[in-house]
């Protein structure tokens, strides 16, 4: 199979489906896959941290995944098998063709020397490597919590060393590795005032609790994963309860204060 790049001039637009070839698709931890894509056509994508793409699995599904890494050509995602779509994706082989739509959402990163704390839960780790790499001028401490040690993988082995990643603390609920407990436990042990901003990415319940715990006014952020059908701000499926914001267009990262009503509707 041959690369069709450069055959014709085509305008590439954000919301069009663009063909990509699977470069790798490997299980890096239990039910957790790393997939990377090579574009089949010249894309010149401008990808920013916390941008996401809708990944098209032909005739099966169309699922939002956060950019986990991007080197200007190869685009990497990290995903966990949840249901049909992610399962089908995990069965796709190298060189198969899929479609991607994006980059979607607003960027979120810092270059200005701030100190940032990231608290990731489970697959919430996905967007973090690209975020760290992009936020070069900032010092980042990362707490990653998982239920079982089998969910872990070696982050720096996959993404390379990140100089601005200062402390990296792992929590496991089964106490098989790192600290014993939940990622949010870290909030009680770390002095939050030392950070300019604190960001949490993970299951909704965790982010809800995070927002309750995080006492820094206006500087606590979460990255939402609302139901995303169109990704272009017109279907309304990703709306944030009690606000006029849409996750796909105004997010996915929001300040805790913006998603208060949204989280209130979640039964914890």
């Amino acid at each position, binding site marked *: 199979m041959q690369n069709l790049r450069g055959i014709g001039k085509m305008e590439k637009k*954000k919301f069009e489906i663009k063909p990509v070839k699977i470069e790798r698709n490997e299980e890096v931890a239990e039910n957790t896959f790393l997939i990377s894509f090579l574009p089949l056509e010249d894309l010149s994508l401008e990808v920013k941290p916390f941008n996401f793409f809708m990944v098209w699995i032909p005739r099966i599904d169309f699922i939002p995944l956060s950019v986990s890494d991007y080197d200007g050509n190869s685009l990497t995602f990290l995903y966990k098998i949840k249901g049909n779509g992610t399962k089908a994706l995990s069965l796709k082989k190298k060189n198969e063709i899929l479609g991607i739509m994006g980059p979607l959402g607003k960027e979120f990163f810092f270059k200005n020397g701030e100190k940032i704390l990231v608290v990731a839960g489970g697959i919430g780790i996905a967007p973090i490597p690209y975020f760290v790499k992009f936020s070069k001028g900032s010092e980042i401490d990362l707490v990653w919590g998982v239920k079982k040690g089998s969910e872990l993988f070696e982050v720096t082995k996959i993404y390379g060393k990140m100089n601005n990643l200062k402390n990296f603390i792992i929590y496991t609920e089964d106490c098989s590795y790192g600290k014993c407990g939940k990622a949010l436990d870290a909030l009680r042990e770390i002095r939050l005032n030392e950070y300019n901003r604190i960001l949490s990415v993970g299951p909704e319940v965790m982010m809800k609790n995070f927002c309750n715990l995080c006492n820094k006014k206006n500087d606590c952020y979460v990255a939402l994963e609302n139901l995303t059908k169109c990704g272009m701000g017109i279907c309304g499926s990703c709306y944030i309860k009690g606000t006029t914001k849409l996750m796909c267009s105004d997010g996915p990262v929001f300040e805790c204060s913006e998603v208060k009503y949204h989280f209130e509707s979640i039964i914890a």
Partner: protein
Amino acid sequence: MVILMTLNIELAGIILKNPLMNASGILGQNKEAIKRLYEYGFGAVVSKTITPMPRIGNKPPIILSLPNGGLINAVGLENPGKGTIKELVEEAKELNIPIIVSVGGTNEDEFSEVAKEAEISGANAIELNLSCPHTKGYGLEIGADPRNVFNVVKNVSSIIKIPVIAKLGLNDKIVEASGKALEAGAKALGLINTVKAIYIDVYTLKPVLSNIHGGLSGPPIHPIAVRVIYDVYREYRAEIIGSGGVKDWKDAAEFISAGAKAIQIGSALISNDDPKHTIKSILGGLENWLRFHNVTSLLELVGSAHRD
């Protein structure tokens, strides 16, 4: 204030502070979305098409942007059912913006059921979606047959007092069907809906929308919509809400010249462009257009392309 006055228009008895509204299906299925639409700067808001019972709609992909500058969609009339109308209308009342409830169904009774609920909830008008091109049983099959159009509109307008708008899609008999809708009591016509289309990915050789068929919207269909508006206006001088590919003031002005009194905007609201800015610049452009033609009210330009 004085300047915006010129864009006031009365449509089906409703006063709009400007002639722009969202096209049905673009947001509009919960109160948050109604408020968002309000903030965009519209003169009225239109709900997503509501059917009696909730509908789940199609699996994504349901909306795509195409290389020709249009969108294709097959949302599948996903909506929370008629129970949600009250919340939508209340929000609009709170914001003091007219709300049109778009009504869907498979037969006269279903349309009437939702329309009644809209009236009870206090909606300013209802729009009958007789034109969804991609959901079997809901739409184009009804709208393409002038007798069906007559029956549905007649039934609905006999049981409610608020204005009924009949939204029709492109079909061979659209001028005739428009006439039947008016005869049956429609106060205004919505012209047009999306046009049946398919998008195939040539690498995987698969249609991209889960539904395979979808409806084409955006700039590609604009000249088609102008044609329909022009022909229907010429025949009946009816009140028309134009929809199809409006993205700037010139597109809107073309609809108005052809005969539209109000304009719905759908595809141009994709977050690519800033929707607030889009609406503002269309309104600004229309104001300048009135000045250019030395008139003080939009009404003076409605149907102006029909003059000698």
